[in-house]
């Protein structure tokens, strides 16, 4: 009788598991492609490819969900384990096997690199107007609640509260804030409507600020190619050390992507502003945009080229230089890569995609190794085959 461990090793390195993983991957990729029509790429990535399971709620709005299919991380992880186990168990050195060994070794590098990228890479964007200097990039999806002390005209003191802390019911305090914040509500997608003066039925979103005249309603997640979620939060501010008796309640405020104006509150003679904004990633260097150029083919609207002329300025290292960022020619600096991603309609604002991906070399190495492996393997087949044909025709 085999021990459990031996059985497990046999299973994890078996060809059957490989075939299962490949078939499951095939179905997952196919379903994930079709699902993009309905849900959009962001939601599909999150649910299908960057998950352990695909969860299906029998009731559309209910919290009860059943795992119906393995997700991308589970299949990828299993395939990786299967590859490594099979490699270790069956590895024999020899020219005949070199092609196969290389192919699978390269695949291990690519899969592992892909998993690391999924876990550790950060994508953000940088929006710069001509003449403007920026030292931070912004997240596409994540927000933060910024509480800013504007009393000093030369310097803003900012307390930024990340989105995942904005759970309804949570109490947030910070040493540099003279008040505490209670999250009343947080909506991933919402709609804001002005309440007409004649309308006495609708309940305003908050007691203070712009929200006092706004009706806030929850919306389902945006799914279209160009649609974006409108995030909103309602927060209550409490001044003073103890709020048990209800004293020190300053009221509630609405903050939202859809509110252009920052909300203000005066506490202890100082004015603070509240905004819900894209999460910022500050850099130890700055970029200044000199000129954005958008060329079209003559007589048409077909874009020919986009480019941004920028100056990179790093006070720490003293490096200061000009750079031209254009299609297929990004700027790499400080572990990050800046790509020409887009522009705004007025054509004086450039949008750069900023990517920090520590494992970006893995696919490059992996694909070379796999490519060489496949060439070797099929090449040997072909040479062997041709040799046999020749021998056959001579006889």
């Amino acid at each position, binding site marked *: 009788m085999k021990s459990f461990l031996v059985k497990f090793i046999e299973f994890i390195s078996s060809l059957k598991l490989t075939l299962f993983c*490949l078939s499951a991957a095939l179905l997952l990729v196919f379903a994930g492609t079709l699902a993009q029509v309905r849900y959009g*790429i962001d939601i599909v990535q999150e649910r299908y490819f960057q998950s352990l399971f695909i969860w299906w709620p029998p009731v559309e709005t209910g919290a009860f969900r059943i795992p119906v299919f393995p997700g991308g991380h589970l299949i990828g992880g299993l395939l990786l384990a299967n590859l490594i186990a099979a490699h270790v168990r069956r590895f024999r050195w020899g020219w005949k096997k070199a092609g196969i060994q290389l192919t699978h070794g390269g695949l291990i590098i690519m899969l592992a690199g892909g998993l690391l*990228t999924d876990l550790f890479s950060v*994508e953000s964007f940088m929006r710069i107007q001509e003449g403007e200097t920026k030292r931070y990039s912004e997240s596409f999806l994540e927000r933060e609640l910024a509480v800013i002390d504007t009393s000093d005209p030369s310097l803003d003191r900012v307390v930024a509260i990340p989105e995942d802390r904005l759970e309804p019911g949570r109490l947030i305090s910070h040493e540099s804030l003279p008040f505490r914040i209670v999250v009343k509500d947080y909506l991933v997608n919402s709609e804001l409507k002005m309440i007409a003066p004649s309308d006495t039925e609708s309940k305003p979103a908050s007691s203070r600020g712009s929200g006092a005249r706004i009706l806030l309603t929850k919306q389902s997640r945006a799914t279209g190619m160009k649609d974006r979620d409108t995030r909103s939060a309602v927060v209550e501010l409490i001044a003073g050390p103890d709020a048990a008796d209800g004293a020190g309640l300053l009221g509630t405020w609405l903050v939202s992507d859809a509110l252009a104006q920052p909300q203000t509150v005066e506490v202890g003679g100082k004015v603070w502003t509240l905004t819900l904004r894209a999460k910022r990633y500050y850099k130890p260097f700055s970029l200044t945009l000199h000129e954005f150029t958008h060329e079209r083919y003559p007589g048409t609207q077909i874009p020919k080229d986009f480019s941004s002329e920028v100056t990179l300025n790093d006070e720490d290292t003293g490096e200061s230089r000009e750079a031209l960022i254009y299609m*297929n020619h990004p700027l790499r600096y400080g572990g990050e890569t800046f790509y020409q991603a887009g522009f705004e309609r007025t054509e004086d604002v450039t949008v750069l*995609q900023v990517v920090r991906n520590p494992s970006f070399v893995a696919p490059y190495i992996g694909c070379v190794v796999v490519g060489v492996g496949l060439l070797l393997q*099929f090449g040997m087949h072909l040479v062997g085959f041709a040799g046999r044909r020749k021998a056959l025709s001579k006889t």
Partner: protein
Amino acid sequence: MKRWIPWLVGLVVILWIAGTVRPPKASAEGYDTPAFGRLPVLSGGRIQPIDTVARNSLRILSGKQVVRTGDGKLDATRWLAEVFFDSSQAAKRTIFKIDNPEVLGLFGWKQEQRKYFSYAELFPFLQAIEDQGQSAAEVEAAHRSPYQTGVLNLRNGLILYQRLADCLRPAELEDFAAEVDRYAEVLPIGLAAMSARASGKEYDEEAMRSFSGLVNRFEVLGKANHVMPVPPPNGDGEWMSLGAALLATAKDGVADPIVRGYAAAGDAMHAGNPEAFNQAVAKLGEATLARVPEAKSRAGFEGGFNTIQPFYVSMGLCVLAFLVACASWMSDAAAPQLRRGAFGTLLVALLIMSFGLIARMYLQGRPPVTNLYSSAIFIGWGTAVIGLLLEKIFKDGIGTACAGMVGFITLIIAHHLAANGDTLEMLQAVLDTNIWLATHVVVITMGYCAMFLAGMLAIIYVIRGRFSRNFDKATAAGLQRMVYGVICFATLFSFVGTVLGGIWADQSWGRFWGWDPKENGALLIVLWCTLILHARWGGFIKVRGLMIMTIFGNVITAFSWFGVNMLGIGLHSYGFMNKAFPWLIAFMASQLLLMAIAMPTLEKWRGLKQS
């Protein structure tokens, strides 16, 4: 008798080529439209002969390359010349194809015998079409109803027509050339009057008025830049629209001879005078040749390319190769001769396709695959190459037959894709990198070739294995090896192509893999090939399983190549194709049927039992 077979096949090939390639002739009235068609203009961002503008515009509007009139036919260039210069006549030509009954209902018309309508017929409904088209344009392409697509196409067609009609001649003039001369004449007086007025002195009011009237008219003409016929005066610089070039006269006081030439040619056709037209066109040819010799000769070459229609010619040859190769399996006696005939036919088709591909590369200055149209052509070409190689090795007619069939189908697809407009169109900025177009796109398309070829080989195995009587063991074994080998080839190319695509994406968007539909499609092919190979190596499938899985590879490849573009989402969606959707479904259904045919165990296969 047998000896004559290759010659007979050769004769059919020659007759087919001679029948399809007809040099263009002057129109029935005597207009030298071939010479007019070879004049270079700037349109859609590239320099092309008027002949190409004409063919593409007509294909967009009516899906054809000729216009049927009551008593004959007009070729595309003759028709476009009429649109340019003789708008009242052109408005009577029935060129707008409307096949959606609901669109016809918009005008209160019933769907009857005819599908083609004239501008004059549609003229009273322009506003209604514009309104309906506008609201259809706001709906995402994937969600448009057939009516919305139909009315939007009609609106876009009408806009194209009007832009063509407006760009070379103001419709209301009788004598445009005289107007051009008058403009050059009054220019100094007008300018003097203008500066006099600006400095508050007395000025010639009459000269001023007639001058500014002309300027206003030419400014309208200057904005019509769909076709820009005036090359830069000293060879480099920008091409200009007719009106813009006319206004630029202000700088040197002499009307540009090319502007004058187009005005004269237009007047001649407007007045129905072929001789004067031919003279003006001949002068225009000389003037453009002197100014931009390279562009002129390239446009001339493209005109010739249009006439030869290399891909249409090879389409017929592919069918012929397929049929002759199939015939070689029916008759044991004449098999070698028939095989040789089929091989030769496919070789000629390959040479003609190669010429077409190289010509396109020369005209565009790009690697062979730049859009869906050229990918279809390239698949036809690539399959012919692999098919001929297989035939060279195995000598059983199968490689030729498969490549002929795949080539025919992909060229048909290309033929229909051409109806979307200029197949040599300029590339979007992100694609503007020859190195990636030459590597990623070409390699991935070779992967598609191999997949379709393997699928076709498997189909032949199944059909002959199940139904024919002379499918001997050696052929079966050879065919099986072919399928396996081509699948290996497909794996290699699909994998390398996919990864190269990832690297390109990493270079231009900052991520190696983004789960974009087209990327996923490529991944599906790689996964499927890997699955086939591992299932075979592990002994989970044998011959029958290999064939069934390989045929299903056709379904996956069709989805990856075409299907994902129909989803209307993602970074690679270069145009949504409603019309192709039923065909794609039909193709996939046919493959599933073939798989079902292959399902019974091998003992029940007639062809294998015989041997």
